[in-house]
């Protein structure tokens, strides 16, 4: 039976580039031919979460949220708008970062939907963060002599938001690749504003765990860290702040290897995509750490 992939992302009414990473990753996956259909869908754009499934011919759908953390969107908005009958967050049996998949029926189309956990909490997201550090420094061996800051939005409504950031910071720290790894936040302690106070290393790579570049990653964070007084004038990479060289990476979600995380989510839910995963990892520069973790 044909299998389809549907990616669910936030999108934006105001920012034309919000959807770009979603389109890019969908195109990468589409090119592998692993799915008969690959569809993007959005909370704020079209096709909407409400209507995307009726544009899909396949009876079996892998639904992967292109969101950073478990919480409001993955537990309430997406299941409701996709009309996933009998959804209950308990089906994921998650501790906040361990959601895998639940198989449900879409109320309006009758399709079987394998509803996957968000990309942001998948283990391979740690690889993407490291890959992002490599991309921004232009050094495939970056690590020694460098600190790595993984930056998140922070809690507000959702404690899982911070959990996802800390989860990957811990995993990357355990690899002993970077001299220091620290999770920082926009609206809670430890704050990204004080980035240089949290690192001994002269060089600090800063990777925001956001899906798309936008207001937070292009305006707030660069200004908060002191890379620039006015985001419109831009900043250098690296920029020296308080004697540290800050390598600011922009949203991790724009890294091409993100397509691999989407595929991994579908694979964990039973999709037959192992060849596609190999292909995407090769094309996007993703290599599994030799030591594993």
């Amino acid at each position, binding site marked *: 039976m044909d299998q389809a992939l549907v990616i669910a992302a936030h999108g934006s009414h105001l920012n034309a580039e919000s959807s770009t990473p979603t*389109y890019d990753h969908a195109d990468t996956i589409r090119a592998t031919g692993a799915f008969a259909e690959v569809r993007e869908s959005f909370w704020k754009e*079209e096709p909407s979460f409400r209507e995307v499934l009726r544009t899909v011919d396949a009876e079996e759908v892998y639904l992967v949220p292109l969101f950073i953390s478990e919480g409001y969107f993955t537990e309430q908005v997406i299941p409701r708008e996709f009309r996933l009958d009998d959804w209950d967050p308990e089906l994921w049996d998650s501790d906040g970062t361990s959601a895998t998949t639940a198989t449900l029926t879409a109320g309006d189309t009758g399709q079987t939907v394998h509803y996957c956990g968000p990309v942001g909490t998948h283990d391979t997201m740690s690889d993407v963060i490291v890959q992002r550090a490599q991309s921004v420094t232009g050094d495939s061996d970056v690590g020694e002599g460098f600190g790595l800051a993984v930056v998140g939005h922070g809690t507000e409504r959702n404690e899982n938001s911070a959990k996802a950031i800390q989860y990957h910071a811990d995993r990357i720290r355990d690899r002993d690749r970077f001299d220091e790894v620290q999770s920082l936040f926009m609206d809670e302690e430890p704050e990204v504003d004080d980035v240089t106070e949290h690192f001994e290393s002269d060089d600090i790579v800063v990777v925001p765990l956001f899906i798309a570049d936008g207001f937070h990653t292009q305006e707030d964070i660069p200004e908060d860290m002191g890379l620039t007084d006015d985001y419109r004038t831009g900043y250098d990479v690296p920029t020296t702040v308080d004697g540290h060289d800050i390598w600011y990476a922009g949203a991790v979600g724009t890294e091409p290897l993100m397509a691999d995380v989407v595929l991994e989510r579908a694979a964990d839910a039973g999709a037959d995509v192992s060849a596609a995963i190999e292909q995407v990892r090769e094309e996007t520069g993703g290599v599994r750490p030799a030591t594993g973790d």
Partner: protein
Amino acid sequence: MDGEYVDALVDTAPDGIDFDDLHVDRDPDGYAFRTPAATHTGIDEETLREVAADSPYVRNWYFWHAVAPQKDDHWAFLRWLEGADERGVTERYDALSDGVAATWGQLHLRVELTGGERRYHVRHVADADTDSEDLAKHDEPLDARDLAKHDDDGQYRPLKTAPSLRTGWAFPDLTAAELVATVDAFYPATIANWHREREGDLDVSHWRDTVSRQTGIYGVVDTWDRGDGHEHVDWVAEACCDDSQCLKRREWQYDDETDLDVDGGSGTFPCREPCSLVIAAARKWTKLEGEATRTYEFELTPSEKEQLEAVIDAVADGEADDIREADIYEGANRYRVRYLRAKLFDEDGNLAGVETDD
């Protein structure tokens, strides 16, 4: 595909074929082949192949079963495009030789027979008569995602069905499947909803259903409905859902028993529920409309009052940018408005020096 359609016909004939005035079956006497143009009974396979090879009915049958996408709505959409319900095969093939066109939102769609096969063409309706050489050519359906993103002025289009699709491009040579993919990229889910409506099973979610479903920052919109009135929803629909703002035809009402008082528009494809833009705007209005009115006193000349009305009209109708710089006869002309501001605003931006005092 020369010959493929004949092979397919011979393979399928034992099961019987009855499609678009083509009737083929096999019995102990041989094959029977009937169309409005010809009847052959008791013929052998070789004869069947000969009569089939020259028959548009066979090519038509083959297209609809082996070439066209089989998803119900896609299939119905392609049939609609070439007027399959109104024209028999001979008449249709004559028409298709010259090309058959239809409009879908701001898309000008065209299907034409080339070498006996259907090829599809998409461009902006405003470019229907533009020389093809003057249009940027595309052959990848997903290019439509990028074309749909900004209007001719470079402004972002958050609503795909806003009547602001940019011009200057063409998809000159698409297959049936590519045509459907292109249309779906410009106007997502419009084919699916159009088809559901035609089949009588469009799942409309009215205003009440939709706002009561909202949570998070949009949960507040549910509180905007008080008592029996729905005037505020009429205003929402007039503001956002008019044909001048969105090409979908609004089918949602206040609730399943209460229609809105404004027209739903004349679009080809339906709108089945308040979209995310309507809900986001309604959230703002819910907050604004929570304010009580107050009485302010301003002194205006009659012309100044009319000028304020002209400014509101120009902005609401998107015409402010079209008013010429020196056209001081228009109330919304920039010099006229700047003069009004210079005269009536105090240094804090208060109209006629009257503080808002909220």
